[in-house]
Protein backbone atom coordinates (compact mmCIF):
# COMPACT_ATOMS: atom_id res chain seq x y z
CA UNK A 1 0.00 0.00 0.00
CA UNK A 2 1.66 3.23 -1.10
CA UNK A 3 1.91 6.19 1.25
CA UNK A 4 -0.07 9.24 0.19
CA UNK A 5 1.86 12.28 -1.08
CA UNK A 6 1.18 14.21 2.08
CA UNK A 7 2.12 11.36 4.36
CA UNK A 8 -1.40 10.65 5.60
CA UNK A 9 -2.50 7.21 6.65
CA UNK A 10 -2.48 5.08 3.52
CA UNK A 11 -5.90 4.63 2.04
CA UNK A 12 -7.42 1.28 1.16
CA UNK A 13 -7.65 0.75 -2.54
CA UNK A 14 -7.42 -1.64 -5.45
CA UNK A 15 -4.91 -1.69 -8.30
CA UNK A 16 -6.52 -2.09 -11.69
CA UNK A 17 -5.25 -2.12 -15.25
CA UNK A 18 -7.14 0.81 -16.80
CA UNK A 19 -10.21 3.04 -16.38
CA UNK A 20 -12.57 0.51 -17.98
CA UNK A 21 -11.48 -2.16 -15.58
CA UNK A 22 -11.82 0.36 -12.76
CA UNK A 23 -15.45 1.04 -13.67
CA UNK A 24 -16.24 -2.66 -13.86
CA UNK A 25 -14.41 -3.26 -10.58
CA UNK A 26 -16.63 -0.69 -8.89
CA UNK A 27 -19.65 -2.60 -10.22
CA UNK A 28 -18.21 -5.89 -9.06
CA UNK A 29 -17.55 -4.51 -5.58
CA UNK A 30 -21.11 -3.16 -5.29
CA UNK A 31 -19.92 0.45 -5.12
CA UNK A 32 -22.36 2.00 -7.60
CA UNK A 33 -25.98 3.09 -7.75
CA UNK A 34 -26.41 1.14 -10.97
CA UNK A 35 -24.87 3.81 -13.19
CA UNK A 36 -21.17 3.85 -14.03
CA UNK A 37 -18.95 5.81 -11.64
CA UNK A 38 -15.82 7.87 -12.20
CA UNK A 39 -12.88 5.80 -10.94
CA UNK A 40 -11.78 7.47 -7.66
CA UNK A 41 -8.07 7.81 -8.10
CA UNK A 42 -5.87 9.30 -5.42
CA UNK A 43 -5.20 12.49 -7.38
CA UNK A 44 -8.89 13.12 -8.15
CA UNK A 45 -9.82 12.56 -4.50
CA UNK A 46 -7.05 14.87 -3.30
CA UNK A 47 -8.28 17.59 -5.64
CA UNK A 48 -11.81 17.14 -4.33
CA UNK A 49 -10.64 17.43 -0.73
CA UNK A 50 -8.55 20.48 -1.50
CA UNK A 51 -11.66 22.32 -2.69
CA UNK A 52 -13.35 21.97 0.69
CA UNK A 53 -12.55 23.39 4.08
CA UNK A 54 -12.27 20.07 5.88
CA UNK A 55 -9.33 17.92 6.93
CA UNK A 56 -9.53 14.38 5.52
CA UNK A 57 -10.31 12.94 8.94
CA UNK A 58 -13.07 15.44 9.80
CA UNK A 59 -16.35 13.67 10.37
CA UNK A 60 -19.03 15.22 8.15
CA UNK A 61 -21.78 12.79 9.07
CA UNK A 62 -22.24 10.49 12.05
CA UNK A 63 -25.11 8.03 11.89
CA UNK A 64 -25.85 7.19 15.52
CA UNK A 65 -28.06 4.12 15.15
CA UNK A 66 -25.19 2.03 13.81
CA UNK A 67 -22.38 4.35 14.92
CA UNK A 68 -20.90 4.97 11.47
CA UNK A 69 -18.83 8.09 10.84
CA UNK A 70 -18.33 9.44 7.31
CA UNK A 71 -15.11 11.44 7.04
CA UNK A 72 -14.36 14.14 4.50
CA UNK A 73 -11.98 11.67 2.86
CA UNK A 74 -14.72 9.08 2.27
CA UNK A 75 -17.13 11.82 1.19
CA UNK A 76 -14.58 13.04 -1.36
CA UNK A 77 -14.12 9.53 -2.77
CA UNK A 78 -17.86 9.20 -3.28
CA UNK A 79 -18.13 12.71 -4.74
CA UNK A 80 -15.48 11.83 -7.33
CA UNK A 81 -17.36 8.64 -8.17
CA UNK A 82 -20.58 10.64 -8.56
CA UNK A 83 -18.92 12.85 -11.15
CA UNK A 84 -18.56 16.03 -9.08
CA UNK A 85 -16.12 18.77 -9.99
CA UNK A 86 -13.95 19.72 -7.00
CA UNK A 87 -15.74 23.06 -6.58
CA UNK A 88 -18.96 21.18 -5.82
CA UNK A 89 -17.45 19.56 -2.73
CA UNK A 90 -18.40 22.31 -0.23
CA UNK A 91 -22.04 21.75 -1.21
CA UNK A 92 -21.72 17.96 -0.83
CA UNK A 93 -20.09 18.36 2.58
CA UNK A 94 -22.71 20.80 3.82
CA UNK A 95 -25.49 18.51 2.60
CA UNK A 96 -23.93 15.59 4.48
CA UNK A 97 -23.76 17.73 7.61
CA UNK A 98 -27.42 18.65 7.12
CA UNK A 99 -28.67 15.06 6.79
CA UNK A 100 -26.45 14.18 9.76
CA UNK A 101 -28.11 16.77 11.98
CA UNK A 102 -29.62 14.81 14.90
CA UNK A 103 -33.07 16.30 14.22
CA UNK A 104 -33.05 14.73 10.73
CA UNK A 105 -32.94 11.21 12.24
CA UNK A 106 -31.31 9.87 9.09
CA UNK A 107 -31.81 6.20 9.90
CA UNK A 108 -35.52 6.58 9.11
CA UNK A 109 -35.38 8.22 5.68
CA UNK A 110 -32.34 6.12 4.76
CA UNK A 111 -33.92 2.77 5.48
CA UNK A 112 -37.71 3.00 5.73
CA UNK A 113 -40.19 1.32 3.44
CA UNK A 114 -41.36 4.88 2.63
CA UNK A 115 -38.50 5.13 0.16
CA UNK A 116 -37.76 8.84 0.35
CA UNK A 117 -35.19 10.79 -1.64
CA UNK A 118 -32.79 13.25 -0.06
CA UNK A 119 -33.84 16.60 -1.51
CA UNK A 120 -31.21 19.36 -1.51
CA UNK A 121 -32.26 22.96 -2.22
CA UNK A 122 -29.31 25.30 -2.74
CA UNK A 123 -29.52 29.04 -2.05
CA UNK A 124 -27.14 31.98 -2.22
CA UNK A 125 -24.33 33.14 -4.49
CA UNK A 126 -22.83 29.66 -4.96
CA UNK A 127 -25.74 28.69 -7.21
CA UNK A 128 -24.50 30.83 -10.07
CA UNK A 129 -20.84 30.10 -9.43
CA UNK A 130 -21.44 26.37 -9.84
CA UNK A 131 -24.04 26.69 -12.56
CA UNK A 132 -26.73 24.91 -10.55
CA UNK A 133 -30.01 24.73 -12.40
CA UNK A 134 -33.05 26.52 -10.98
CA UNK A 135 -34.80 26.77 -14.34
CA UNK A 136 -36.23 24.41 -16.96
CA UNK A 137 -36.22 20.73 -15.99
CA UNK A 138 -34.57 21.48 -12.64
CA UNK A 139 -35.56 18.08 -11.21
CA UNK A 140 -34.56 16.27 -14.38
CA UNK A 141 -31.42 15.42 -16.34
CA UNK A 142 -28.95 17.71 -18.06
CA UNK A 143 -27.04 19.66 -15.43
CA UNK A 144 -23.80 18.31 -13.99
CA UNK A 145 -23.94 20.12 -10.62
CA UNK A 146 -27.54 19.17 -9.89
CA UNK A 147 -27.02 15.58 -10.98
CA UNK A 148 -23.73 14.85 -9.27
CA UNK A 149 -24.17 16.71 -5.97
CA UNK A 150 -27.38 14.84 -5.29
CA UNK A 151 -25.84 11.59 -6.48
CA UNK A 152 -22.96 12.00 -4.03
CA UNK A 153 -25.33 11.73 -1.08
CA UNK A 154 -26.86 8.54 -2.43
CA UNK A 155 -23.44 7.00 -3.01
CA UNK A 156 -22.44 7.86 0.57
CA UNK A 157 -25.60 6.15 1.82
CA UNK A 158 -24.92 3.10 -0.32
CA UNK A 159 -21.20 2.82 0.28
CA UNK A 160 -20.68 4.19 3.79
CA UNK A 161 -23.98 3.48 5.52
CA UNK A 162 -24.72 0.19 3.74
CA UNK A 163 -28.13 1.41 2.62
CA UNK A 164 -28.31 -1.12 -0.16
CA UNK A 165 -31.67 -1.98 -1.68
CA UNK A 166 -33.26 -4.87 0.12
CA UNK A 167 -30.55 -4.96 2.77
CA UNK A 168 -30.64 -1.82 4.90
CA UNK A 169 -32.66 0.20 2.40
CA UNK A 170 -36.08 -1.41 2.68
CA UNK A 171 -37.92 1.00 0.37
CA UNK A 172 -41.05 -0.74 -0.81
CA UNK A 173 -40.72 0.99 -4.17
CA UNK A 174 -38.36 3.93 -3.87
CA UNK A 175 -38.40 6.42 -6.73
CA UNK A 176 -36.14 8.01 -9.30
CA UNK A 177 -35.28 10.98 -7.07
CA UNK A 178 -33.24 8.57 -4.97
CA UNK A 179 -30.56 8.70 -7.66
CA UNK A 180 -30.24 12.45 -7.21
CA UNK A 181 -32.51 15.32 -6.17
CA UNK A 182 -30.61 18.58 -5.97
CA UNK A 183 -31.64 21.94 -7.40
CA UNK A 184 -31.22 25.64 -6.81
CA UNK A 185 -33.96 28.03 -5.80
CA UNK A 186 -34.82 30.59 -8.47
CA UNK A 187 -34.43 33.46 -6.04
CA UNK A 188 -35.10 36.09 -8.72
CA UNK A 189 -38.46 34.53 -9.61
CA UNK A 190 -39.55 34.22 -6.01
CA UNK A 191 -42.16 36.69 -4.76
CA UNK A 192 -40.45 36.53 -1.39
CA UNK A 193 -37.09 36.67 0.33
CA UNK A 194 -34.86 33.69 -0.59
CA UNK A 195 -35.68 30.46 1.20
CA UNK A 196 -32.51 30.55 3.30
CA UNK A 197 -33.20 34.13 4.42
CA UNK A 198 -36.63 33.00 5.60
CA UNK A 199 -34.78 30.38 7.62
CA UNK A 200 -32.48 32.82 9.39
CA UNK A 201 -29.47 33.14 7.06
CA UNK A 202 -28.13 36.21 5.26
CA UNK A 203 -28.76 36.66 1.56
CA UNK A 204 -25.02 36.61 0.82
CA UNK A 205 -24.53 33.28 2.56
CA UNK A 206 -24.88 30.10 0.54
CA UNK A 207 -26.82 27.23 2.07
CA UNK A 208 -28.30 23.81 1.54
CA UNK A 209 -31.75 22.92 2.83
CA UNK A 210 -32.52 19.21 2.98
CA UNK A 211 -35.80 17.32 3.13
CA UNK A 212 -36.70 13.63 2.95
CA UNK A 213 -39.15 13.66 0.05
CA UNK A 214 -41.62 11.31 -1.52
CA UNK A 215 -41.99 11.59 -5.26
CA UNK A 216 -43.22 14.97 -6.43
CA UNK A 217 -46.71 15.55 -7.75
CA UNK A 218 -47.10 17.91 -10.68
CA UNK A 219 -49.64 20.62 -9.80
CA UNK A 220 -51.00 21.79 -13.11
CA UNK A 221 -52.85 25.10 -13.44
CA UNK A 222 -52.94 27.25 -16.55
CA UNK A 223 -56.36 28.82 -16.33
CA UNK A 224 -56.22 31.31 -13.51
CA UNK A 225 -54.14 34.06 -11.95
CA UNK A 226 -56.35 34.22 -8.88
CA UNK A 227 -54.32 33.10 -5.84
CA UNK A 228 -57.13 31.19 -4.17
CA UNK A 229 -58.13 29.33 -7.34
CA UNK A 230 -54.49 28.56 -8.00
CA UNK A 231 -53.70 27.39 -4.48
CA UNK A 232 -56.83 25.24 -4.42
CA UNK A 233 -55.07 22.99 -6.93
CA UNK A 234 -52.21 22.58 -4.46
CA UNK A 235 -54.38 21.88 -1.43
CA UNK A 236 -56.35 19.31 -3.38
CA UNK A 237 -53.10 17.43 -4.05
CA UNK A 238 -51.87 17.91 -0.49
CA UNK A 239 -55.07 16.49 0.97
CA UNK A 240 -55.08 13.36 -1.18
CA UNK A 241 -55.64 10.31 1.00
CA UNK A 242 -52.58 8.56 -0.34
CA UNK A 243 -50.26 11.29 0.91
CA UNK A 244 -52.27 12.37 3.93
CA UNK A 245 -50.27 12.56 7.14
CA UNK A 246 -49.26 14.91 9.93
CA UNK A 247 -45.99 15.33 8.05
CA UNK A 248 -44.36 18.22 6.27
CA UNK A 249 -44.68 19.53 2.72
CA UNK A 250 -42.41 21.14 0.15
CA UNK A 251 -44.02 23.22 -2.59
CA UNK A 252 -41.85 24.28 -5.52
CA UNK A 253 -43.75 27.02 -7.31
CA UNK A 254 -43.08 27.38 -11.02
CA UNK A 255 -42.16 30.98 -11.93
CA UNK A 256 -45.52 31.44 -13.64
CA UNK A 257 -47.43 30.50 -10.50
CA UNK A 258 -45.03 32.50 -8.34
CA UNK A 259 -45.71 35.55 -10.51
CA UNK A 260 -49.45 35.27 -9.83
CA UNK A 261 -48.79 35.31 -6.09
CA UNK A 262 -46.39 38.23 -6.47
CA UNK A 263 -48.92 40.23 -8.52
CA UNK A 264 -51.59 39.63 -5.89
CA UNK A 265 -49.24 40.70 -3.11
CA UNK A 266 -49.48 37.44 -1.19
CA UNK A 267 -46.79 37.03 1.46
CA UNK A 268 -44.97 33.79 2.22
CA UNK A 269 -46.76 33.51 5.57
CA UNK A 270 -50.15 34.22 4.02
CA UNK A 271 -49.59 31.57 1.38
CA UNK A 272 -48.42 29.00 3.94
CA UNK A 273 -51.44 29.74 6.13
CA UNK A 274 -53.90 29.45 3.23
CA UNK A 275 -52.40 26.16 2.12
CA UNK A 276 -52.52 24.74 5.65
CA UNK A 277 -56.07 25.95 6.26
CA UNK A 278 -57.37 24.36 3.05
CA UNK A 279 -55.38 21.10 2.92
CA UNK A 280 -57.72 18.97 4.98
CA UNK A 281 -59.98 15.96 4.85
CA UNK A 282 -62.72 15.06 7.26
CA UNK A 283 -61.97 12.46 9.90
CA UNK A 284 -64.76 10.46 8.28
CA UNK A 285 -62.90 10.56 4.93
CA UNK A 286 -59.71 9.38 6.62
CA UNK A 287 -61.59 6.52 8.26
CA UNK A 288 -63.29 5.52 5.02
CA UNK A 289 -59.83 5.37 3.48
CA UNK A 290 -58.51 3.21 6.28
CA UNK A 291 -56.05 5.93 7.24
CA UNK A 292 -56.79 5.92 10.98
CA UNK A 293 -55.07 3.07 12.72
CA UNK A 294 -55.81 1.84 16.23
CA UNK A 295 -52.26 2.66 17.30
CA UNK A 296 -52.86 6.34 16.50
CA UNK A 297 -54.99 6.53 19.61
CA UNK A 298 -52.03 5.41 21.75
CA UNK A 299 -50.04 8.41 20.55
CA UNK A 300 -50.97 11.77 22.12
CA UNK A 301 -49.28 13.57 19.20
CA UNK A 302 -51.41 11.74 16.63
CA UNK A 303 -54.59 12.24 18.65
CA UNK A 304 -53.77 15.94 18.75
CA UNK A 305 -53.31 15.88 14.98
CA UNK A 306 -56.66 14.20 14.36
CA UNK A 307 -58.67 16.45 16.68
CA UNK A 308 -56.68 19.69 16.48
CA UNK A 309 -59.40 21.40 14.47
CA UNK A 310 -62.43 19.49 15.78
CA UNK A 311 -65.43 21.73 16.56
CA UNK A 312 -65.95 19.96 19.86
CA UNK A 313 -62.25 19.54 20.55
CA UNK A 314 -60.68 16.28 21.47
CA UNK A 315 -63.27 13.70 22.54
CA UNK A 316 -63.43 13.03 26.27
CA UNK A 317 -63.41 9.30 25.65
CA UNK A 318 -61.37 7.93 22.76
CA UNK A 319 -62.88 5.09 20.77
CA UNK A 320 -62.00 1.55 21.67
CA UNK A 321 -59.40 -0.01 19.42
CA UNK A 322 -62.02 -2.09 17.67
CA UNK A 323 -64.13 0.96 16.82
CA UNK A 324 -61.38 3.23 15.59
CA UNK A 325 -61.94 2.59 11.92
CA UNK A 326 -65.70 3.09 12.02
CA UNK A 327 -67.17 6.47 11.13
CA UNK A 328 -68.81 7.93 14.23
CA UNK A 329 -71.15 10.82 14.96
CA UNK A 330 -69.30 14.07 14.40
CA UNK A 331 -66.52 12.64 12.25
CA UNK A 332 -67.97 14.33 9.15
CA UNK A 333 -67.33 17.74 10.73
CA UNK A 334 -63.83 17.11 12.05
CA UNK A 335 -61.24 18.60 9.68
CA UNK A 336 -57.85 16.89 9.75
CA UNK A 337 -55.17 19.02 8.11
CA UNK A 338 -52.01 17.91 6.38
CA UNK A 339 -49.21 18.73 8.86
CA UNK A 340 -49.49 20.44 12.21
CA UNK A 341 -49.33 24.08 11.08
CA UNK A 342 -48.39 26.54 8.32
CA UNK A 343 -44.70 26.28 9.25
CA UNK A 344 -44.79 22.63 8.13
CA UNK A 345 -45.15 23.87 4.53
CA UNK A 346 -41.86 24.98 2.97
CA UNK A 347 -42.23 27.20 -0.09
CA UNK A 348 -39.57 27.55 -2.75
CA UNK A 349 -39.48 28.53 -6.43
CA UNK A 350 -37.98 26.92 -9.50
CA UNK A 351 -38.67 25.78 -13.05
CA UNK A 352 -38.81 27.05 -16.57
CA UNK A 353 -40.24 30.47 -17.25
CA UNK A 354 -43.02 28.95 -19.36
CA UNK A 355 -45.60 26.59 -17.98
CA UNK A 356 -48.07 26.30 -15.16
CA UNK A 357 -46.42 23.26 -13.62
CA UNK A 358 -45.45 23.39 -9.97
CA UNK A 359 -44.68 20.53 -7.61
CA UNK A 360 -45.86 19.19 -4.28
CA UNK A 361 -43.44 16.91 -2.43
CA UNK A 362 -44.87 15.13 0.61
CA UNK A 363 -42.83 13.78 3.48
CA UNK A 364 -42.18 10.09 3.48
CA UNK A 365 -44.00 8.49 6.38
CA UNK A 366 -47.45 8.18 7.89
CA UNK A 367 -46.12 10.09 10.90
CA UNK A 368 -44.29 13.37 11.32
CA UNK A 369 -41.25 12.23 9.34
CA UNK A 370 -38.25 14.53 9.70
CA UNK A 371 -37.85 18.31 9.60
CA UNK A 372 -36.27 20.66 7.07
CA UNK A 373 -32.62 21.32 7.96
CA UNK A 374 -30.59 24.24 6.58
CA UNK A 375 -26.79 24.50 6.83
CA UNK A 376 -24.36 27.09 5.55
CA UNK A 377 -21.98 25.97 2.81
CA UNK A 378 -18.49 26.73 4.17
CA UNK A 379 -16.18 28.37 1.65
Amino acid at each position, binding site marked *: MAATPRGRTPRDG*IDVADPWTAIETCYAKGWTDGLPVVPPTESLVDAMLAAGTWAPSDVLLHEPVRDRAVTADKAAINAVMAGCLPEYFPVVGAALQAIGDPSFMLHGPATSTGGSALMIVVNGPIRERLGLNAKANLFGPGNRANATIGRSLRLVLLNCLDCRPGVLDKSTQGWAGKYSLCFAEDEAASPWEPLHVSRGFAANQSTVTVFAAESGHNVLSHGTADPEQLLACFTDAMAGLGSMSPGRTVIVFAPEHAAHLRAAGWTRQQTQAWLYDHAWRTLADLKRGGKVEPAFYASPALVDWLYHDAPQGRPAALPDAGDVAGVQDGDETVRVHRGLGPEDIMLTVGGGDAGGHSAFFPSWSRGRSVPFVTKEIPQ
Partner: protein
Amino acid sequence: MMRILDPTLGPPPAAVALPRAPRPHSLSGVTLGLLANGKSNGMALLDRLVERLGERHDIGNVVRIAKTNASAPVSDRDAEMLAGRCAAVLTAIGD
Protein backbone atom coordinates in the same frame (compact mmCIF):
# COMPACT_ATOMS: atom_id res chain seq x y z
CA MET B 1 -1.91 0.37 -13.95
CA MET B 2 -3.98 2.67 -11.73
CA ARG B 3 -5.24 2.62 -8.16
CA ILE B 4 -8.84 3.31 -7.10
CA LEU B 5 -9.75 4.13 -3.53
CA ASP B 6 -12.26 2.24 -1.42
CA PRO B 7 -15.41 4.36 -0.91
CA THR B 8 -16.77 2.21 1.93
CA LEU B 9 -16.18 2.31 5.66
CA GLY B 10 -15.30 -1.36 5.78
CA PRO B 11 -17.05 -3.79 8.08
CA PRO B 12 -18.93 -2.29 11.00
CA PRO B 13 -17.02 -2.14 14.27
CA ALA B 14 -17.55 -5.13 16.53
CA ALA B 15 -20.26 -4.50 19.06
CA VAL B 16 -18.97 -3.57 22.46
CA ALA B 17 -19.85 -6.32 24.90
CA LEU B 18 -21.75 -4.82 27.79
CA PRO B 19 -22.31 -6.82 30.97
CA ARG B 20 -25.78 -8.32 31.07
CA ALA B 21 -28.14 -7.11 33.74
CA PRO B 22 -29.09 -9.74 36.31
CA ARG B 23 -31.99 -11.87 35.09
CA PRO B 24 -35.14 -11.83 37.20
CA HIS B 25 -35.70 -15.27 38.75
CA SER B 26 -39.42 -14.96 38.26
CA LEU B 27 -41.93 -12.60 36.68
CA SER B 28 -44.35 -13.07 39.55
CA GLY B 29 -45.22 -9.79 41.16
CA VAL B 30 -42.64 -7.81 39.19
CA THR B 31 -43.20 -4.65 37.20
CA LEU B 32 -42.81 -5.37 33.52
CA GLY B 33 -41.95 -2.64 31.02
CA LEU B 34 -43.18 -2.57 27.42
CA LEU B 35 -41.33 -0.41 24.92
CA ALA B 36 -43.03 -0.23 21.53
CA ASN B 37 -40.63 1.02 18.93
CA GLY B 38 -42.79 3.58 17.17
CA LYS B 39 -44.61 1.57 14.53
CA SER B 40 -48.34 0.99 14.50
CA ASN B 41 -48.62 -2.47 15.94
CA GLY B 42 -45.67 -2.81 18.29
CA MET B 43 -47.80 -2.29 21.37
CA ALA B 44 -50.49 -4.66 20.11
CA LEU B 45 -47.80 -7.33 19.75
CA LEU B 46 -46.43 -6.62 23.22
CA ASP B 47 -49.89 -6.64 24.80
CA ARG B 48 -50.58 -10.03 23.26
CA LEU B 49 -47.27 -11.25 24.60
CA VAL B 50 -48.12 -10.03 28.10
CA GLU B 51 -51.47 -11.77 27.82
CA ARG B 52 -49.70 -15.04 27.05
CA LEU B 53 -47.09 -14.52 29.76
CA GLY B 54 -49.91 -13.78 32.21
CA GLU B 55 -51.19 -17.32 31.69
CA ARG B 56 -47.97 -18.62 33.20
CA HIS B 57 -46.83 -15.85 35.55
CA ASP B 58 -48.57 -13.64 38.07
CA ILE B 59 -47.15 -10.41 36.60
CA GLY B 60 -47.41 -7.29 38.74
CA ASN B 61 -47.71 -3.88 37.08
CA VAL B 62 -47.16 -3.26 33.40
CA VAL B 63 -45.59 0.03 32.30
CA ARG B 64 -46.08 1.01 28.66
CA ILE B 65 -43.94 3.39 26.61
CA ALA B 66 -44.70 3.93 22.92
CA LYS B 67 -42.01 5.79 21.03
CA THR B 68 -43.58 8.37 18.73
CA ASN B 69 -40.95 7.91 16.03
CA ALA B 70 -39.29 4.65 15.06
CA SER B 71 -36.23 6.55 13.79
CA ALA B 72 -35.54 8.27 17.10
CA PRO B 73 -33.92 6.62 20.12
CA VAL B 74 -35.97 6.21 23.27
CA SER B 75 -35.74 9.38 25.36
CA ASP B 76 -33.34 9.40 28.30
CA ARG B 77 -36.29 10.14 30.57
CA ASP B 78 -38.24 7.10 29.43
CA ALA B 79 -35.15 4.87 29.51
CA GLU B 80 -34.35 5.93 33.06
CA MET B 81 -37.95 5.44 34.13
CA LEU B 82 -38.04 1.95 32.65
CA ALA B 83 -34.68 1.07 34.20
CA GLY B 84 -35.76 2.40 37.59
CA ARG B 85 -39.22 0.85 37.77
CA CYS B 86 -39.08 -2.40 35.88
CA ALA B 87 -37.53 -5.78 36.60
CA ALA B 88 -37.61 -6.55 32.87
CA VAL B 89 -38.49 -4.66 29.69
CA LEU B 90 -39.82 -6.16 26.48
CA THR B 91 -39.41 -4.24 23.27
CA ALA B 92 -40.88 -4.85 19.83
CA ILE B 93 -41.57 -3.28 16.48
CA GLY B 94 -44.71 -4.21 14.60
CA ASP B 95 -45.96 -2.58 11.46
